[in-house]
């Protein structure tokens, strides 16, 4: 099973955390600190798996953001790696060319989408369409107007670039 999901930026800023196994508050901070040290320092062209305290962390970098999922040592690593990509593709569809800023300003939506993909640390839905349908159903009350703050921030940082095209 997936014990936790962490999204963390290249600068070590946490963008999303989701814990499926019970971790106390202190443990959570320790885990994030240790994993940042372990993963952010890894160079390119290495494998997407890191062994950590008897677990494995499967991670993938998209532009400036690292998506990390911690699994048991005998879980199927590639399967989880593609769960990450599945998640990113759904984010991409939802936001329309997702970038890190979308996830910063709309972190709550990222949580909501993640809940439609994983429950109990297991994959809940592998159809992007099915997930999109559920989210769309909830969205009817309001329309996803592009927030001017997000747009401004994107322009300022020049980081309008799409994450998925920068998968590493």
């Amino acid at each position, binding site marked *: 099973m997936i014990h936790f999901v962490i999204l963390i930026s290249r600068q070590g800023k946490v*963008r999303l955390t989701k814990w499926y196994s019970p971790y106390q508050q202190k443990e959570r901070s320790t885990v994030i600190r240790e994993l940042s040290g372990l993963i952010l320092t890894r160079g390119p062209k290495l494998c997407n798996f890191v062994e950590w305290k008897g677990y494995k962390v499967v991670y993938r970098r998209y532009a400036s953001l690292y998506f990390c999922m911690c699994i048991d040592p005998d879980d199927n*690593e*590639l399967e989880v790696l593609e769960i990450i990509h599945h998640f990113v593709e759904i984010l991409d569809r939802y936001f329309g060319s997702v970038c890190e800023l979308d996830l910063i300003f*709309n972190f709550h939506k990222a949580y909501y989408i993640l809940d439609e993909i994983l*429950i109990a640390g297991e994959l*809940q839905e592998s*159809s992007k369409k099915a997930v999109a349908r559920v989210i769309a159903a909830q969205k009817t009350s309001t329309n996803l107007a592009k927030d001017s703050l997000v747009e401004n921030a994107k322009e300022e940082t020049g980081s309008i670039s799409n994450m998925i095209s920068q998968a590493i």
Partner: protein
Amino acid sequence: MALSGMRGLSVFISDVRNCQNKEQERLRVDKELGNIRTRFKNEKGLSPYEKKKYVWKMLYIYMLGYDVDFGHTEAVSLISAPKYPEKQVGYIVTSCLLNESHDFLRMVINTVRNDIVGRNETFQCLALTMVGNIGGKEFSESLAPDVQKLLISSSCRPLVRKKAALCLLRLYRKNSDVVNVDGWSDRMSQLLDERDLGVLTSVMSLFVALVSSNIEAYWNCLPKCVKILERLARNQDVPQEYTYYGIPSPWLQVKTMRALQYFPTIEDPNTRRALFEVLQRILMGTDVVKNVNKNNAAHAVLFEALALVMHLDAEKEMMSQCVALLGKFIAVREPNIRYLGLENMTRMLLVSDVQDIIKRHQAQIITSLKDPDISIRRRALDLLYGMCDVTNAKDIVEELLQYLNTADFAMREELALKAAILAEKFAPDLSWYVDVILQLIDKAGDFVSDDIWYRVVQFVTNNEDLQPYAAAKAREYLEKPALHETMVKVSAYLLGEYSHLLARRPGCSPKEIFAIINEKLPTVATSTVAILLSTYAKILMHNLPPDPELQEQIWSIFRKYESYIDVEIQQRAVEYFSLSRKGAALVDVLAEMPKFPERQSALLKKAEDAEVDTAEQSAIKIRSQQQTSNALVVTDQRPANGSMPVSQLGLVRMPSQNMEAGTQGQASSREQGMTDENGSINKVVPQDTPSADLLGDLLGPLAIEGPPVPTVPVEQKDKNLLSALEATSEEAGPLALATVDDQPNSVQPIVNIAERLNALCLKDSGVLYEDPHIQIGIKAEWRAHHGRLVLFLGNKNTSPLVSVRALILPPTHLKMELSMVPETIPPRAQVQCPLEVVNIRASRDLAVLDFSYKFVTAVVNVKLRLPVVLNKFFQPILVSAEEFFPQWKSLSGPPLKLQEVLRGVKPLSLPEMANLFTSLHLAVTPGIDANPNNLVACTTFYSESTRAMLCLIRVETDPSDRTQLRITIASGDPTLTFELKECIKEHLVSIPMQTAPPPAVSPVQPQSPVTPAAYNDPGAMLAGLL
């Protein structure tokens, strides 16, 4: 969507982002937290929208790493909000901030339950998601039935059902009782017919969890899994949205194959054939493609298929395909595939006889040891460790030593330990072993645990031919400028014992040896000083005729340390000083250390324990426990002895050396071949091994196998009290096992048989017995009064085990039939022998397996009790209060109802006791007994004579004294009542057999004036450790 358009939140995020530094950020966050606090305090003026906004802000602040505990109540309270937008925020934020052990969650159990049973689908989804993510035991107990209903409901939409499946999985993980096995096997089978692939994916995850702990109940699901796999592999009836880069749901394929790995075999030939066709298609049809995602997904499926093939021990042909594929993978550039190739090759070593093929890839694997990626290096290290044997040990260990120079700190300790273990297990000759360990200490002293150097000292002490060599090596190392402290210890120790053997060599006079050791004295730690003082005393002893100058030097050191701050050092200094003035007596007191009794290496033991510790219930781990693993450590394969030139044996006088002669006799033919090449004839005197009755071993505490016989060397055997005392205290150290003379069998089990048996009484698969040559594993299934055990006999050696004989001695209440056991078990092979059991009536007598085999010339015979125990014929049953009480009343008084007060009970908390009962197949039934300190359990017993018979159990505990309790047992059969009572008693009352601690540190020691404190004396420490 309801979540968007919160301008205040965006502004806040924007502000935080604009902060120039951490301090500014903290100020901005503190301001916001203050604001949120005040707003929450005057809740009246808070609109639902505002409340929602503040809770989101809190989550954001929490992600930044600040403490938001004060707001937990607010988040949780939103769950009870009537409207969807607030409720949603409440559920999501709560499940992010809290974990299952949080008290606040209790407050909302009712609300959550109402949402789950209510008609509002969106509320159902929110509640199921939160419970699935952070639900704990309490949720498990109160919500499981409702969640089950949703999962099997025909009126629920897939959206809800898939969430219910995973929610139930969570609840099951927290409390396995929530899924009642009886009803579920059929239900599961129906659920696997699901057409909606989203639901099926979730259901399959649930199924994997269920089947992992109870295979028997789900045999009927096996064909369904194969069907699903066929459907996906053939891409039949798979909607486009469920294909991922052209691959029909890779996740579902992987999960299904994972589930199949829990079934021991597939007997039905049609199902088997169908499955193998699919597997074959996957193995052959997966190509490397350019698209990363497609490639990953395809290989995720491929690696799972490989694991399944390995598990099924498919035909040789398929296995060799797998090896070929893995060989290809470990050479590719793509790092993920290479990593997984190495990992799976290591797994393959555990399950199959492919070592020789894997060895062909040795060079490639060594290349990976130098890969820039530490993940890959670790895998390579593991694989090299696993594939090492006598033929390649030298190469591999030398690679590891070389790698030690450049290895990351994170890996050095593991690397050092592995190198040391391999050197010990597979050394072609002992001097090489000494070289390796000394190099290890030299290169990575900080990472060499004490066990490692204790072990080399033990080897040197027990092998006289090695002593001058080791002493000379130690002398060489001492000349190096910056020496690791461990090296100082081991060198000083070796030179103290054996430097007199070098006396004629240049630079090795006692005076010179003393001088070079003494250089280190000012800089070493106390524990090393203790060793140096002993060394000086020994140098002094060997210095005959005495050199007054040296004597004076050493004496002055002793005198100096008489007032040293550490008591141990003081005492040594005082004693050595006065002893060394006694002249001849010194020779007796400080004579060479006697040889150590042969024991299992502490290192190997450590490695084994580590394996056992991490062993959980997972398909691969169960496999690796059953299978003889050559990655696991095997004690006897110390060809150090096996290939030692025979002439060396002539010098050996010690009784403990018989063991080595024995092991040599058992050395594999390959090793004998090597000896022959050396030109000496292998004249091993076969030990006439009487067929040992290990039953005594089974029943008695392992640690005390007869009195330790002081094996005092001849020159030491005099009446001198001091010397005798020292020798005894060495020999009778903690854990001192009997010397070989006392042991009728040269082959000793390397597992605690009693413990293993005990464990198997509570679970259905595991290792029953293991010695250096064979491992006997058991896997059992029980259905009513029938049982089917499979004995797995695994030959751990590279030569066959012959004259294998297995005889079952059943007690009168069991009918047992063992299928044919082959007479020969080929090298590194495993044979499976089914054993059918029928239970006639209740009894606690145990069946015995009388097992023997011959290895080279040694006949080994063991008698092992089999875990066919009373509780295996129980099936837990939940009885309602309405059913319970009439039964309970109708069974009045003895002999159908028995009561007993037990004292000296292992102090267990009620949940622990409940767990114990569950593992005994007794269903603990809450809510019948009003007293919370009591426990009521029910079960059905099956035997031929009684058929199904209900048993009722009540335990009354005394919370103020957990060591006593009263049990009452009732059933319709007097024998059953009695036997069940005794059975429970056995498990509740601590039986000294298991808990017998190793005899405490020999009581002789404190009286001994020579070894005042065992802990600092390397000899005593060694005796204790090895």
